[in-house]
């Protein structure tokens, strides 16, 4: 079916651009790869029947976070000796840090892999269909209902969190003008 094709496309996109994020040494390109990764994850959400989450993913990450990242990259630079291209793009690490990262990742991979293998061993990995497919046909109504009934406290808390983040970000990023006077 269509979703199968979509799954392979998005999975490829996700993993390929995830690897790009690690490999590429230009921060701008790394950010572009991250964009691809986000789009891929959104595609994966669609294959899981989570249309709404996919759209939210698109809206928040692509429309918001990535642009914020790009702005932050443009508003900051680095020491001249590490510049890449004509812009002052900052340090992307060296072989020593990469080694440390790979070691940690390997350890992590081993333990997570063990858990996954255990899960697959009891047959959880083989589940291919949702127990109640009708639930995933249109999730907007249910998500809205759940947000305002069962999870209303979390919903309100997240609104407070967002307000705090908004004000906090605005105040933190504002340059100090009063002290210089």
């Amino acid at each position, binding site marked *: *079916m*269509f979703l*199968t*094709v979509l799954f392979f496309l998005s999975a490829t996109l996700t993993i390929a651009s995830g690897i790009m994020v690690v490999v590429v040494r*230009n921060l*701008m*390109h790394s950010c*572009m790869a991250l*964009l691809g990764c986000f789009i891929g994850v959104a595609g994966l959400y669609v294959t899981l029947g989570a*249309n*709404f989450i996919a*759209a*939210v993913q*698109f*809206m928040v990450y*692509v*429309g*918001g976070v*990535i*642009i914020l990242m*790009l*702005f932050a990259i*443009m508003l900051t630079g680095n020491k001249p000796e590490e510049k890449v*291209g*004509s*812009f002052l793009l900052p340090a992307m690490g060296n072989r020593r840090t990469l080694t440390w990262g790979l070691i940690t990742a390997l350890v992590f991979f081993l333990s997570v892999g063990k858990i996954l293998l255990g899960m697959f061993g009891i047959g959880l990995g083989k589940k291919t269909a949702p127990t109640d497919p009708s639930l995933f*046909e*249109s*999730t*907007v109504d249910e998500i809205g209902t759940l947000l305002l009934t069962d999870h209303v406290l979390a919903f309100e808390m997240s609104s407070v969190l967002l307000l705090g983040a908004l004000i906090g970000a605005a105040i933190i990023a504002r340059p100090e003008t009063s002290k210089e006077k």
Partner: protein
Amino acid sequence: MNGGLIPYLSGFDWFNQTIKSTSAFLSFDTTSLLSFLIYAVFASLLVFLVLMPIGGLGTYAERKISADLQARIGPNRVGPYGILQFLADGIKMVLKEDIVPVGADRFVFYLAPLLAMVGVFMTVAVLPLSSGLTMVHLDIGVFYLLAVSSLVGIAVFLGGYAPNSKWSLLGGMRGASQIISYEIPVVISVLAIVLLSGGMSFDVLVGSQGGLPHRWFLFHNPFTFLAFFVYFVGALAEANRAPFDLPEAESELVSGYHTEYTGMRFAFFALAEYVEVFVLCAVAAALFLGGYNVPGELLKDHPLGQLLQLGAFFTKTLILYYVVIWVRWTLPRIRVDQLMTICWKYLTPIALFNLVGCALWMYCFDGKSIVSLLFESGVGAASGGH
């Protein structure tokens, strides 16, 4: 989408034959792959056959209308009334040399116009051209549209960054900040309508309106009336149209984020812009002006009815399109601080007020429109007031 396509296609012999042969060759069931490919080809054809002319005719309309407003004649050489001018322009664009500036970030430079195109063209998938001619009946329609169109913001930003030119960079920064700022009032205005109709799908949004103006959401209540204007102003800013065309302000930034683009890449940006204007007008028509609804639901189940619906939809959209062009050639450009003031101090609070107002209206009057309320009270008064 596939639910209808595969049974339809499996009626054809060639389809089944192809499936058999490719399955044998590739050793797995290729039904979905084939139908996906066929659908992709179909959709691309539609995009090229419908949207390219829309974008092209957009440029033609712009030039012709601006000429009209300035008491000139405009293009009149190529074809009758110069109507084939856009084809000539297109051919010129294709034939031009593709120049990449020396200090440019090549990867991003190539990526940006594509992103703009993709972001805009993806939105077309859910546009309700008529009740039958909607490519995807998505349950999150309008939300999907708004989400996908945010790709344009990134494209503008990258287009500004990539060529390593200060005009471009300034234009790109301005464009991105403008687009993400104006997304807020636009989304909140749309949310008010979503609240009234109770769904995000365009089927629901358009279906809960009617053919005649008194059943449009525009005249549903005072808040939606305001919301329409908030949406329209926000949409102008999102599409970087005058008077909000700061990212490409000719007099100060040469041509903003596409200063360094030539040839086909420039054409991509231009096309994306015109199609985006079309899409935003179409959304306005669908959300506020009754969309494809024909007065009296004429010929609803007849194939000709689809044509009527297409006509209604395109009439509304193109009138709005005309207004956009009209505004561009009438109003002067505003300053950057005015731009931000309009967004954060006026449009966003008004949009929030509208949202709360709509919610209160729903609560108080049970979702009835102001016209039906007036009508009911009139009938009530006529029949004795009890």
